[in-house]
């Protein structure tokens, strides 16, 4: 289909395989836990050990491809139970952060150190110490793009000068149209940006926060080119599924998901109680602090709307006469289609919240959320010795019954979503959906324990590996939340209070379904076989980067299930894998979780792919246990088509041409969802010949088909030689998925997306270069009625990009 050839020659590249190992760090198996006294002494020496690690890292700058303007700043070091001090360093250049760059140094108990440089960005050679544009100019450019409905003053903004690796330049964004079940182009989050030719540029990271009636809650972050002002990247920092002086107290709650649960609360001087776990968290909650008051502990709040200033907000559950909360039933959705959200108001009518949020029924969600906060916090503390989400004891909070804005209804309850909100360093739990809201009712409620654990784990990932939320690293990010969220549930289900994580009952597949009790009809995700949701992948394939991160997490989730519970040799079993037909024995939750946590916190770089995660988890297994456990890790990855198990032959690999590599205008790093490296833009009503590459076999034949039968009947047929006449109409902004399967090994396949464009801007029934003239005329003229000339439907440079790519794909030469 394209004359462009991929620069990749095989599956996921291994960043770790390129690791530069410096020093004499131990890779030997089974590092034992140190005696408490020795461990205490090492922890006391941690600052000196971190400083030593920093010096060793700086001494290796030349070998790492860095000059003396590069520096490393330690972030959140910790000393693990084996006495290893793990320090993750932020890489800087001329004093400014290098975006997405880091290094990890392991300092072993005996003092040897090992540098893990896979996150280091080498070869930075920028002139001067500052870009041409100032921070205020970058802020203005970002705000112009943000265009808050409530006005520029409504946006809170943080600006940081950074060095930006241009290969991360974003481009066309996609989103999931859940109602139609298809992936579509998302013009709102698309950024017209072709990577600058230089590998690095001075730039500004501009973080914005909107939380008001007109805009709802958004945390859009921009990368603005410091010299040209071009927006190079844009993403929503929200990762979806967002002054009290009291004493600790113990209450109880009637939860929706877990019956009667204990609650850590606080008692005020007036004798009333609040949903604040004062016994967890030693640093103040940063968002509360930014608002001018200090809040320690885990706080559960409810959503509000302030009618005086027209802002959405939240208030903590305080002033409760008793320390018994909730009634175990859910609040009916406080919504009426004729008026929008049903609200209760305070005495002067200046503040509103969802009707019933402060009643016992309304408290039920708060009970689940508050229990989830504390249980997740305890899980990390007890099992991994981690002090909270960031490892520093920073307090966090949750919001239940949140309110958002709808253009149609006005003020509405937020439904069917839960997310970790980095700006707030807190979580948001929406209501369950309802047909009354025009919704199918995906969730009954979003506060089930594994979901709570999932969202808080996003915070842990943010503070450790910092996995970039897209592509394979995004799939790893999501899977990590599923995995450790599920382990939080296992910990609570098993009644654990110590360091060990109990197993789920063998054969209990429901235990491995994310949100099993929270979702109506089907699980949110099934870790044992992710494809049961009809979207998620069970295994790695070339092109998986194009899948939303909530679905590309599938192979990693299944890997983890296999690692913990084993894989079946029975082909009829849900836990059977054709990639490991003989099955395997699992290691149990305890070992599997420790391996994954160590890989996350000590090895993974922010742009890790599945193969890098495989290498990291093998290394972590060797750190903690023996070759036997490491081989189990290899088998579990092999069972999801990532690498081979011991003794397995090299696998056939098949791929489509890479049409939009990193940094191209469509971009291999488009955000927030989907990577479009394999997407091809083609004109309608044109005959093309699809091409694939097959490696590691002499039989290079492939079978091509449409991956979604809903498109197949309309999209025509593909000949045995790959010839396809595109239909005489577009699918608007829908991506048309296609799959190529190897003749030699039908278990190996690749996927790509096609995007059809109607080039006939002048509507003379011919697609030719004259049509581009119409596109040129309507550029920058939003009221021009010539819709046909807007090839991409956007009225800007995307139209030219779509036109020229489709044209050149159809008519030679490029």
């Amino acid at each position, binding site marked *: *289909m*394209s*004359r462009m050839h991929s620069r990749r020659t095989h599956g996921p590249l291994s960043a770790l395989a390129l690791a530069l190992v410096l020093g004499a760090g131990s890779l030997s198996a089974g590092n034992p836990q140190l005696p408490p006294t020795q461990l205490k002494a090492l922890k006391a020496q941690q600052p000196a050990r971190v400083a030593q690690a920093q010096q060793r890292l700086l001494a290796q700058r030349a070998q790492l491809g860095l000059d003396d303007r590069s520096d490393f700043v330690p972030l959140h070091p910790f000393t693990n139970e084996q006495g290893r001090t793990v320090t993750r360093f932020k890489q800087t250049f001329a004093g400014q952060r290098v975006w997405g760059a880091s290094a990890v140094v392991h300092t072993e108990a005996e003092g040897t150190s090992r540098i893990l440089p896979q996150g280091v960005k080498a070869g930075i050679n920028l002139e001067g110490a500052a870009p041409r544009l100032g921070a205020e100019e970058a802020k203005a450019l970002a705000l112009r793009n943000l265009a808050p409905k409530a006005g520029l003053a409504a946006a809170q903004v943080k600006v940081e000068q950074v060095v930006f690796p241009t290969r991360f330049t974003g481009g066309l964004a996609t989103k999931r149209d859940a109602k139609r079940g298809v992936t579509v182009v998302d013009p709102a989050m698309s950024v*017209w*940006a*072709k990577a*600058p030719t230089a590998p690095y540029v001075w730039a500004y990271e501009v973080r914005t926060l909107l939380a008001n009636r007109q805009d709802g809650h958004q945390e859009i972050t921009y990368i603005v*080119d410091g010299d*040209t*002002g*071009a927006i190079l990247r844009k993403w929503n920092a929200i990762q979806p599924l967002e002054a009290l002086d009291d004493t600790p107290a113990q209450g109880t709650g009637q939860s929706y998901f877990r019956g009667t649960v204990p609650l850590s609360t606080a008692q005020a001087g007036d004798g009333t109680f609040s949903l604040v776990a004062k016994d967890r968290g030693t640093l103040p909650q940063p968002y509360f602090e930014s608002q001018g008051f200090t809040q320690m502990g885990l706080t559960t709040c409810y959503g509000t709307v302030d009618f005086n200033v027209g802002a959405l907000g939240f208030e903590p559950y305080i002033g409760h006469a008793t320390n018994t909360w909730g009634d175990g039933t859910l609040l009916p959705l406080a919504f009426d289609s004729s008026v929008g959200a049903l609200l209760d108001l305070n005495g002067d009518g200046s503040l509103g919240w969802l009707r019933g949020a402060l009643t016992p029924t309304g408290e039920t969600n708060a009970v689940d959320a508050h229990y989830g906060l504390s249980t997740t916090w305890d899980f990390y503390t007890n099992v991994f010795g981690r002090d909270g989400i960031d490892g520093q004891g920073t307090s966090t909070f949750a919001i239940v019954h949140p309110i958002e804005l709808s253009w149609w209804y006005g003020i509405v309850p937020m439904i069917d979503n839960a997310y970790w909100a980095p700006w707030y360093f807190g979580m948001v739990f929406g209501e369950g959906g309802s047909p009354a809201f025009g919704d199918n009712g995906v969730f009954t409620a979003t506060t089930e324990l594994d979901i709570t654990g999932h969202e808080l784990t996003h915070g842990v990932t943010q503070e450790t590996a910092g996995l970039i939320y897209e592509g394979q690293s995004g799939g790893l990010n999501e899977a990590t939340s599923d995995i450790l969220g599920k382990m939080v549930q296992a910990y609570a289900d098993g009644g654990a209070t110590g360091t060990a994580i109990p197993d789920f009952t063998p054969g209990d597949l429901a235990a491995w379904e994310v949100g099993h009790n929270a979702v109506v009809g089907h699980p949110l995700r099934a870790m044992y076989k992710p494809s049961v949701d009809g979207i998620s992948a069970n295994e790695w394939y070339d092109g998986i980067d194009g899948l939303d991160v909530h679905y590309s997490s599938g192979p990693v989730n299944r890997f983890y299930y296999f690692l913990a519970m084993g894989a079946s040799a029975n082909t009829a079993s849900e836990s059977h894998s054709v990639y490991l037909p003989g099955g395997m024995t699992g290691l149990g939750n305890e070992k599997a979780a420790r391996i994954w946590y160590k890989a996350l916190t000590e090895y993974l770089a922010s742009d890790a792919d599945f193969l890098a995660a495989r290498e990291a988890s093998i290394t972590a297994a060797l750190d903690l246990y023996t070759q036997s456990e490491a081989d189990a890790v290899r088998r579990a990855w092999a069972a999801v088509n990532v690498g081979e198990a011991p003794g397995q032959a090299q696998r056939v690999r098949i791929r489509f041409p890479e049409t939009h590599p990193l940094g191209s*205008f469509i971009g291999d790093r488009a955000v927030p969802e989907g990577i479009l490296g394999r997407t091809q833009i083609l004109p309608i*009503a*044109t*005959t*093309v*010949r699809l*091409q694939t590459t097959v490696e590691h076999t002499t039989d290079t034949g492939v079978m091509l088909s449409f991956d979604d039968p809903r498109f197949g009947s309309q999209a025509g047929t593909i000949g045995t030689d790959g010839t396809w*006449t595109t239909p*005489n109409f577009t699918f608007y902004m829908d991506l048309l998925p296609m799959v190529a399967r190897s003749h030699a090994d039908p278990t190996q396949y690749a996927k790509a997306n096609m995007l059809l464009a109607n080039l006939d801007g*002048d509507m003379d*029934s*011919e*697609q*030719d*270069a*004259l049509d*581009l*003239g*119409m*596109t*040129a*005329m*309507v*550029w*920058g*003229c*939003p*009221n*021009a*009625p*010539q819709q046909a000339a807007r090839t991409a439907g956007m009225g800007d*440079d995307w139209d*030219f*990009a779509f*036109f*020229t790519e489709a*044209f*050149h*794909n*159809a*008519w*030679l*030469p*490029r």
Partner: protein
Amino acid sequence: MMNRTPTLALAGLLLSFGLACGGGSSAPAPQAAAPAASLSYTDPAGSSWRLLKDASSTPTRLVLNLVGPAGTLTRGVGFNLKAPEGLKFDAFPGGMLIQDAGVYQLLSNALDPNEPVALVGGVKTGNLLSAGIYQKGRDQGAKDSGAALCRIALALDSAHRPLAGTTFTLSVIKARIIPEDIGSPTDEPFTLDRKLRMTDISVAVGTVTAR
């Protein structure tokens, strides 16, 4: 890699019969001739839209300038040019089949270093070059068309090399310009719709001779 659809191929063929006066090679020379090794071109007469030989042409590569009538202001031009068997359209450095002659302002005032330009060219089935060069939007004023606006190139097709003495008639199947007046974003939609139209033109083409 790509072919036109039967639908488009048929449409092109009908247009060829309906609008073009040629497109095929003329009768061969009366004497047996050797395969051609070079090309010559005779410019067409007149001062309207025409394809004129560019000084950068070589014996084996004919470069033609698209020139418009002096004093006519335009914002871009596109055309479909059919060449008979024996000739092939040749690319310029960078791989494009059309070269900007520098008259039209191809970048807007957007200061976007990645801004795409409206310049495109490709060969469709039937040896039909479809090419266009345009100014985007209305940031820039219209340009006097009485100069070389863009270039295309022709060479002998080694796969179908003609005999020396063969003459060829090129035919412009369709050509349109963006006129000076393309309205204003503040115009009424009806007015704007009427003004946002390309205008048909005729392009005179000279004679190519293989030697």
